[in-house]
């Protein structure tokens, strides 16, 4: 299902990141805007019907006021968001391929109480990626029973 929301991910070396995301996670570059020097101004990548934006670190008071865009590689591995990618099938194969190609796996494929099988990995600059495959169609009541947690649909 296509989403109206696109995560935009910032890298110190966006060109290396595009190539890494293609080789390791199987993304495809669908749009690449370069500047005079050939460096990446803005890029879009697709994976199934999902899409991300990717770009370099940027920001200045003039361009972006108090905000600043940086890679986790510039922040000792800290990040302000994670990306979740929905896989239709073969999550374990995706993980094996990513690990063989150089991804750091921080959580091995594992069934979760909410009906998904999930693995987590870090990309080349330390962004956290969570790959998720639905394995059971559960109601919120099923999830509560399985986890012992309180799950609501409002605050």
């Amino acid at each position: 299902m296509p989403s109206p929301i696109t995560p935009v991910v910032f890298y110190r070396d966006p060109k290396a990141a595009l190539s890494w995301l293609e080789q390791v996670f199987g993304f495809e570059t669908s749009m690449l805007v370069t500047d005079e020097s050939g460096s990446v101004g803005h890029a879009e990548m697709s994976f199934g019907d999902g899409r991300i934006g990717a770009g370099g670190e940027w920001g200045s008071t003039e361009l972006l006021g108090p905000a600043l865009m940086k890679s986790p590689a510039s922040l000792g591995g800290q990040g302000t968001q994670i990306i979740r990618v929905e896989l239709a099938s073969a999550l374990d194969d995706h993980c094996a391929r990513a690990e063989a190609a150089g991804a750091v796996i921080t959580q091995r494929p594992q069934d979760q109480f909410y009906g998904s099988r999930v693995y987590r990995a870090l990309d080349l600059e330390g962004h956290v990626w969570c790959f998720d495959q639905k394995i059971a169609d559960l109601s919120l009541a099923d999830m509560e029973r399985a986890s012992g947690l309180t799950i609501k649909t409002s605050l």
Partner: protein
Amino acid sequence: MSESPRPGMSSGVVYRDPHAALKWLEKAFGFEITMVVENEDGSIGHSEMRFGDGLIYVGREWDERHRSPANLDGVNTQSLHFNLTDGVDAHFERAVAAGAIVLREPADQFYGDRSYMVMDPEGHVWSFSQAIKAMTFDEMAKAGGRPVRDHL
């Protein structure tokens, strides 16, 4: 009730105060809360919000890798970009009325969109855009004065 289908890509957004964030995102941007998982102490462990077919997760700073921009002097490692079908100016007014910090007011962009950019109360950067003119990559390249292509 079973979950609605999930989109291919979604973002987990980290907050110091997820409870306040859920309320603010509902009011400012028109998100709908669809799931709140509470810890035993009543704090929020995990939550989901929907915006049309879009989905985000709102969570806390649960380990040293996950930080709110409020604890990083306004630095973001990712931002969120929304495609609205219409009403980008009205959406902007609503966000500002709720206290969004304006980074860029709504303006027409060379690539055929009208868009705006704001910060939420903890410093996450959000942009909202509406297509006003369908353009090919060649037309964008000409209008922007820089090469645009569909591969690395």
